[in-house]
């Protein structure tokens, strides 16, 4: 496709906007509703860390805090940690197969969601927090990973990354 070119700004922006739209859609307030944006964000963090990095994670996190009407900073901390873990494990991720990537991403999301729930629990003590609030969204989100990789990997290659 010539419309999307090798992880261009255009493809990044369009996919992130789609992620925001998916998150804004009124799914309801069930705890298992996945965060679509975080998957797209960490995908671009892996592919184009020179364009999408901690600053983007911070700003998108603030936007999602406003959307979910939580205290400002909760989602941004979550996104920052996910981004950082992706940067930390970039080499491991790029060297593994799609299945291996799935497991590493699941790990990243588990850690991120655990931290998010911990913060929420600290701010709002004695609200009951069950393990499924962490595992369910993490699992659903990491199931999106192969789909998003397949969809977007046609536009961007590891090749472009190694060149830069």
């Amino acid at each position, binding site marked *: 496709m010539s419309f999307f070119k090798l992880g261009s700004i255009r493809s990044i922006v369009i996919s992130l906007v789609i992620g925001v739209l998916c998150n804004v859609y009124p799914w309801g*307030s069930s705890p298992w509703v996945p965060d679509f944006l975080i998957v797209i964000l960490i995908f671009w963090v892996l592919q184009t860390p020179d364009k999408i990095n901690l600053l983007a994670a911070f700003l998108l996190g603030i936007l999602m805090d406003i959307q979910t009407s939580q205290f400002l900073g909760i989602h941004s901390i979550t996104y920052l940690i996910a981004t950082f873990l992706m940067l*930390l494990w970039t080499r491991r991720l790029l060297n593994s197969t799609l299945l291996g990537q799935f497991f590493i991403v699941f790990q990243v999301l588990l850690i991120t969601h655990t931290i998010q729930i911990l913060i929420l629990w600290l701010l709002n003590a004695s*609200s009951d*927090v069950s393990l499924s609030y962490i595992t369910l969204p993490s699992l659903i989100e990491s199931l999106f990973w192969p789909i998003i990789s397949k969809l977007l990997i046609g536009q961007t290659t590891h090749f472009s990354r190694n060149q830069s």
Partner: protein
Amino acid sequence: MFRSSPSLFNQDAPILRLVFFLLLSLVLLFADLRLHATEQIRSFGQHVLYPVQKILSMPSKYAEFSVEYFSTRNTLKNRVSDQAQQIENLTLLANQAESLESENSNLRKLLNLQQKSPFKTLATEIIYNPTNPVSQKIIINRGTIDGVKPGMPVAGSLGIMGQITRVFTNSSEVSLLEEKDFSIPVFVERSGLRGALFGVGRSEPLELRYINNLADLDIGDYLITSGIDGTYPPGIPVAIITKIDRASESSGAIISCRPFSNLNQYLHLMVLLYQPNTIAPLPTESETVKNRLKLKKGGQ
């Protein structure tokens, strides 16, 4: 020659930048939690997101609309006649209520009691309820333009549902009854017992507190707003008692209640534009002095 194996971790992961942004987030969090200083960022963001939220909430509304559009003539006819009947009944009740109201206000004047403040209602629609694992909130499509202010009660057709906690230009945020630490002063309709109803958390029953262990309570008693705090107008149904657990120790009974309005059901709500016109007057010094003088005169 030895070659070090490729490291498992990316050595140049930007720890310093992470720490910087994390600190920035924590500052924001603190500013929001303690100082409430982030309203401008929030209202700006909400302003940007509002059209998107509005458009994305369309499909569910369209689904509802199409169901109505394709309903048969017969059901519509039945519904119209039902509603006409209902309106007649309600008019009768309303007339009666009006006469009672005027009678009541006359009696209150006679007895020199504080007048009840009348209030208007504002119909609203839910735009969405934000994904949030620990609390229950909804966003409605009325804001400062429509005269909504923080603290105003929100009700469904059956009773109180929550309270406005944040207001933007076109939309506002409502905390529902189930929200943890939500409290509302109520009294038991049957016995007139006063207490306060508290939210415990998502999909947990509400709790009636500050009531004596031996108080006269029964399962199925109605709780209605007492209007003592001045936030809620008196006499609006809130909840029904579902379970009473009389503790053996003297700490008091645990009384579980269920809200009248199903908090997850409605699309349309009312904001009660209720602002009590008088706050209980504080005794001024001059009056107390006058009283003392009167007492002295009386004594002489």
